[in-house]
């Protein structure tokens, strides 16, 4: 039981970080960016390249990973998505294809072998008699720091309030003088940066492989559907529901069923409350 609580809490924090950027873009722009998980994957590789292959310090590795994923997100928005904001289907399909292209590019660059990202913080700690990876603890602390920063930004800054306004009532926000293009661009940039941090920690928690984006995508999708598309609070709650359910399933039943609880809950939520737990 202790292990389920500890591992579940740690995993949930990481899940929340990955899903956060995904839900922000939908909340503001009303489009689903499936390439978000691709940015997570590329960020993980960028960090590995910078720190292990180039021998740069960890801080530089983080900076490069965040810069790459932010650049990809901004580039996707400016180069493609901006002209199709009124057609979510095109964005949905094309960003999925973009993620596939990223996978193939990474295969060309790093081949289809598994690569381990050395832990950012090494060693294990015993918590309530359970072994816990220091790296995962660091990942979760960083995740919550990022989530806190995003919440602060959204609630306390002018741009954050503009994001919320646009998410609530697009027409009203525009009449009030908010530039939707700038708000969208900022949202995509923040989302890309979150993908960068998530990529480094997700890569070091798991491993790098060009298909790494698929699992975070499925999991993010389940989380934002359960929490309510576009709801940051819902994403946090759903990440914990999924994280704890997954951990309990793996420890108590079988690790092959890891993804099943999240998907089952997603179906139940879609049937019982289609807008999600915190959806409007």
């Amino acid at each position, binding site marked *: 039981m202790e*292990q389920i609580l500890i591992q579940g809490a740690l995993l949930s924090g990481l899940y929340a970080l990955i899903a956060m950027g995904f839900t922000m873009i939908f909340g503001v722009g009303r489009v689903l960016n499936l390439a978000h998980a691709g940015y997570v994957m590329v960020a993980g590789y960028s960090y590995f390249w910078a720190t292990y292959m180039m021998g740069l310090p960890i801080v530089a590795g983080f900076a490069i990973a965040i810069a790459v994923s932010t650049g990809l997100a901004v580039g996707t928005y400016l180069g493609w998505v901006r002209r199709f904001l009124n057609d979510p289907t095109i964005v949905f399909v094309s960003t999925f294809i973009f993620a596939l292209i990223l996978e193939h590019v990474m295969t060309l660059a790093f081949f289809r072998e*598994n*690569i381990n990202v050395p832990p950012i913080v090494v060693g*294990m700690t015993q918590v309530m008699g359970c072994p816990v990876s220091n790296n995962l603890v660091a990942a979760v602390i960083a995740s919550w720091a990022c989530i806190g920063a995003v919440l602060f930004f959204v609630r306390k800054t002018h741009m954050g309030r503009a994001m919320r306004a646009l998410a609530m009532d697009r027409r009203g926000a525009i009449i009030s003088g908010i530039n939707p293009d700038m708000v969208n661009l900022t949202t995509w940039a923040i989302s890309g940066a979150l993908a960068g941090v998530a990529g480094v920690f997700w890569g070091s928690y798991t491993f790098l492989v060009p298909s790494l984006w698929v699992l975070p995508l499925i999991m993010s999708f389940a989380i934002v559907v359960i929490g309510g598309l576009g709801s940051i609070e819902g994403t946090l709650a759903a990440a914990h529901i999924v994280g704890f359910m997954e951990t309990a399933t793996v420890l108590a039943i079988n690790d092959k069923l890891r993804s099943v609880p999240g998907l089952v809950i997603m179906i139940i939520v879609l049937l019982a409350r289609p807008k999600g737990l915190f959806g409007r």
Partner: protein
Amino acid sequence: MKKKGLQKLGVLISVVLALAIVLPLAGGCTAGAPAPEEPWKCGYIGALATDVGRSSQRTTQIAIDEINAAGGLLGRQIEYVEADSTEEPLEGVKAYEYLAEHHKVDFIVSGCIDDVSLGWMPRLLEYKIPTLDTWTSAIRCIEIVHDDYEAGGKAYFMPHMNDYDQGAEYVAFANDLLAAEMGWDTMVLYYEDTAYGCGVAEWVRDEIGPGAGIETLGEVCYDIGTFDFTPVYSKIVAYDPDFIFHICSVNCVPPSAAYVEMEIPIPIFGVNVAACSAEFWDDMGGMAGGFNATMPPPTIGLEWDPVSQALIDKYKARWTDRPIFPHFNGFNAYQGIYHMVEAAERAGGFEPLDKWVKEMEKTDQILWRYGGHERRDDLSPTGQDIKWQYYMYYGPDHDYTHSCVLDQTGEHGRPGGMVMQWKLEKQDPLEATVGIIHPERWRNTEFVFVPWIPEEKRIQK
């Protein structure tokens, strides 16, 4: 305007589709029976984006280039074509069909993993194309060859040890080092959920217990898609065995990395295919020190005979990206192609199949440690050359039909594998080093524990 554009696009698509249909048909009209001056066609099938696939893909090309430079096979050059099987059985079937039907290849070299090879085996029975399978050791493949020999299975050859022959080495290692030297008597069997993992686990379960007196306290089978090994290792640690016997051929880096990152306080042994790759150190992010693995030879860490060394030199001169050093299947493909071509020379080609198979079954090749193809006692520091590699295929009457007897005893007896271990630290700033810890006659380094194994686990009973 928009409508016109769509019409143009429609016409363009129609033309492309028409050409796509007509061109292969046109090619088919001229294919027919190959004229004497036409080249032989060698088809390569494997996962071209993986180290495993690329190892044998590249050494296949080296062998063919050498053969062509020497005048070809029966005066005809060999043309190389390839098909990507990825690591999916269905893709493997499509790739095999593509080589057989589109390219109409004369022989096939495969670097496929077990599940993919098992996927296209029925096609092999159908097309009856001479096929050399250089990676898989799946006993199921050999059972098909043995049971359906006349139905076409005889066209298949495996130029290295099958699972059960490899298992003989696991028992020997468990006897010699784990039981006799360390005095351990309990283990947890920890294996991947693949044809290979389950097959070898079955062998280890049945043989190591009675063979080496080691009790299996529990078994943990994991999915190869597992990304979080925390609960997996928690289960293993709860058994508190003397050691873990790990069987892993696919996605081996994640469980290995988790073992290091979680500092699992129990020694781990067994099969770890990734650990036999020269890239393992870097793939592990520099955390590969102390890892060991049982592998069929030739493997990294071993000294090379002149023939293998020449292959390595050519390989390194031609390719600088990964894999920087071929996996064992690269060596097997290289040698195996020579077996196929030499058999074809004696048989007058690959058809009739029976004639070629009979010649292939006569393969009896020794590679000497110092002399290569010839025994050269004068080059050996001891004044006596050593049989280093031995290639011979079991015949149709043997249970392991057409898998290879790799004799390392020099007595043409049962084959032996090797257990290698990565040094704890890089001895050379550029290249991490590997040594052989078993069997005794090939040992060139001593076994060492990884630093986090507690003293009580190191104590010999």
